């Protein structure tokens, strides 16, 4: 039976050598190598649940009056888009489960990508010959941020609308072309025409997912072509030899197990932990907003950036050049991503290391990289936390304005300080290991001498 299938496929495609290689492709083992896989499996859940949701979602801004089972919105005027998502959440059987699982999967998808990125960065996995893989990974992250944002924007509840208003403010603030670009995207001034919703919809359900899928395929192909990186966990691992478990039989049940575990956790979350209860927010109108609104976690750093920038527009007389949202909403993330894109090149220039690397560093083994990465992480994380300062005000009664001033100062002071501390810690850990090694060698020598006597 197996022989028959293999023969059939090989005779018609000649792919037996390739299949055999694939079956015996080696996966080095370390828990942190699973983070990328978690992202991949979340993406699979996203596509599956997303396709289901498109079967019910109505992409229309036509106004309807709500007469559904959710009493508080009875008789309220809203768009068909919002009404259809209300229906998914109330009348469609299993609709709420799928919708909440979709939302959780999006949050975890991006969280897994970010953790995966941290792993790649701090172990130096992006180094030659894997820069292309790294750049494509960064691009997937950027596209995913936009994809996630569009996902909760097309629902057209109050939070969606507030998010879109901010996106409009940031788009308008782009130097030279802000108003022109916004007019193109929204088909005129905010809130735009109905075709703006068609654009968001096709981007969210087709263009961006297809782009992510293509990038993901190239990302994985590039990984496989060069084989995985590995830690130097024993004498067998080297720059030339990879040590690992083959795809089949070893890795397959492990990876499938992880796929099922990720999907299981996502459906448990989707069923048991409420997320984005849109019926509570109500429909959006440009003249409405609500206090304490928080975006999905992965946009927290942008909210923080927008809130921290002091109040100024760049103007000459009464002629505006660069409006304020540009700094926190566009320049800040662009600088972070630009730095991440350029980092492999910067590191090569700084260290003069142009060689191939298949072995990973532990963070302590490259104090410079760890310090730089830690400083960047501190910066982004601080701004992210600053995005929740209004929550800190409500929950812990910390006055808002002093908080903002503290974050403004910390955003400049904390990154270099934490970078220096990281550098020092790496050095100390290395020194500690050297002492340990020397002690061990001395002990062995002493033992050998004793034995000789």
């Amino acid at each position, binding site marked *: 039976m197996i022989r028959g299938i293999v023969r059939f496929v090989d005779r018609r495609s000649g792919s037996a050598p390739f299949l055999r290689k694939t079956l*015996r492709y080696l996966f080095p083992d370390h828990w942190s190598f699973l983070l990328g896989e978690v992202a991949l499996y979340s993406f699979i859940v996203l596509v599956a649940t997303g396709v289901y949701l498109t079967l019910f979602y109505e992409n229309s801004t036509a106004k309807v009056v709500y007469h559904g089972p959710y009493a508080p919105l009875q008789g309220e005027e809203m768009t068909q888009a919002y009404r259809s998502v209300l229906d998914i959440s109330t009348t469609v*059987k299993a609709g709420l*489960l799928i919708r909440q*699982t979709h939302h959780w999967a999006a949050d975890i998808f991006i969280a897994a990508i970010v953790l995966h990125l941290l792993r790649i960065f701090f172990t130096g996995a992006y180094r030659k010959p894997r820069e292309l893989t790294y750049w494509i990974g960064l691009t997937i992250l950027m596209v995913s941020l936009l994809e996630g944002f569009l996902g909760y924007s097309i629902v057209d509840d109050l939070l969606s609308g507030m998010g879109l*208003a*901010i996106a*409009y*403010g940031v788009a*308008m603030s782009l130097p*030279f072309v802000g*108003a022109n670009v*916004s*007019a*193109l995207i929204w*088909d*005129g*001034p*905010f809130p735009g025409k109905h075709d703006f919703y068609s654009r968001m919809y096709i981007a969210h359900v087709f263009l961006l997912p297809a782009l992510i899928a293509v990038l993901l395929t190239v990302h994985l192909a590039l990984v496989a072509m*060069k*084989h995985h990186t590995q830690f130097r966990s024993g004498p067998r691992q080297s*720059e*030339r*030899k990879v040590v*690992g*478990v*083959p795809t089949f*039989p070893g890795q397959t*049940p492990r990876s499938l*197990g*992880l*796929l*099922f*575990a990720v*999907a*299981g*956790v996502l*459906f*448990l*979350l989707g*069923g*048991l932990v409420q997320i984005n209860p849109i019926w509570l927010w109500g429909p959006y*109108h*440009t003249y*409405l*907003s609500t206090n304490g609104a928080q975006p999905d976690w992965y946009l927290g750093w942008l*909210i923080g950036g927008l*809130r*921290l920038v002091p*109040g*100024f*527009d760049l103007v000459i007389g*009464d*002629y*505006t050049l660069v*409006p*304020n*949202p540009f700094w*926190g909403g566009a320049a800040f993330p662009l600088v972070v991503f630009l730095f991440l894109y350029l980092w492999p090149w910067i590191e090569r220039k700084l260290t003069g290391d142009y060689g*191939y690397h298949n072995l990973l560093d532990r963070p302590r083994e490259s104090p410079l990289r760890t310090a730089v990465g830690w400083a960047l992480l501190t910066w982004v994380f601080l701004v992210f936390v600053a995005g929740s300062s209004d929550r800190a005000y409500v929950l812990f009664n910390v006055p*808002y304005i002093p908080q903002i001033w503290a974050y403004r100062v910390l955003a400049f002071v904390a990154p270099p300080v934490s970078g220096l501390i990281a550098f020092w810690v790496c050095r100390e850990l290395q020194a500690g290991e050297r002492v340990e090694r020397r002690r061990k060698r001395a002990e062995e020598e002493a033992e050998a001498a004793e034995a000789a006597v």
Partner: protein
Amino acid sequence: MGRAKDALISGIVLLLRRRKPRPLGPGERERVVPPAPDNPGWELTAVLLLLAGAACAIAFVVVYVLDRLPAHTQLLGLSLGLSLLFIAAALIVTAHRLIVTEELEDDYPVLEHPEEQELIVQVVEDSGLTRRRLLKLALLTAGGALTAAVLTPIASLGPAVDLVRFYATPWRRGTRLVDEHGKPYKASDIEEDNFYTAFAEGSDKEALPSSLVLVRLPKGSLKLPRELAHYAAEGIVAYSKICTHAGCAISLYRAPLFQPDEPTPALVCPCHYSTFNPADGGTVTFGPAGRKLPMLPLLVAPNGELRAGGNFDQPVGPSWWGVRERKPRT
């Protein structure tokens, strides 16, 4: 005693010695994958986990059909999630206990192929195409022109050049201020320490320049600059409801109810907490907004209705490159 010791040692040596590969019997072949460990206990565990997974999957279908159950979504999520997790557990038991975990070595591929690189360069060069400069130039021209042509329809996406409409507002001298249901506001409707949303009568309420916030300030607290002094009417001031920072609605009015904390009334946008002073024409007192809130001149008609005295003193909504921070021409 010595015998026993010898036997023990030889036994250990025999056990430790790598077993010589058994000669292959007829019909047998050499193994590629070493034999899996025999683990009946774990096999039973995996089988039970898979059956539990199946049971939960069936439970999901049952819950789906019985839609009268309370906590329907929770039960659906629980049954499907547990089903997936049981199967995951079975797979992980399989991976670690029922199949062999080989630790194999392989070579990292050599990535550089200098000869191939050279060949590619040669093929391109030998084709002769790279040397025909005029042809290259013409190709570039054609390519560039065609790209431009194909990109032109993007202009249909929106009025990208016509930026005048970003200044357009529905407010003229005499435009009535109405509430959400279209009922005109009277000056006497506006109470102190309260906050009202108004719209230009007959306008699209969703358009950014349509909505206003109305507040009445305590007597004597108005400190409007000279050019805006006539904008207030009977202590009532009107501002655009759209924040000049990022376009959210300004829906917080901080009247000084808690004296020592908050000394002055303030209009606050809940998105990024830009804070504007309604008493002095809408200047920014805190937060990221880069310019003042647009103020609308107010009139009180003889019948007590609130009317606009003209257009705003500033463009409405988020700023852009080239916007003038002054009264838009109408």
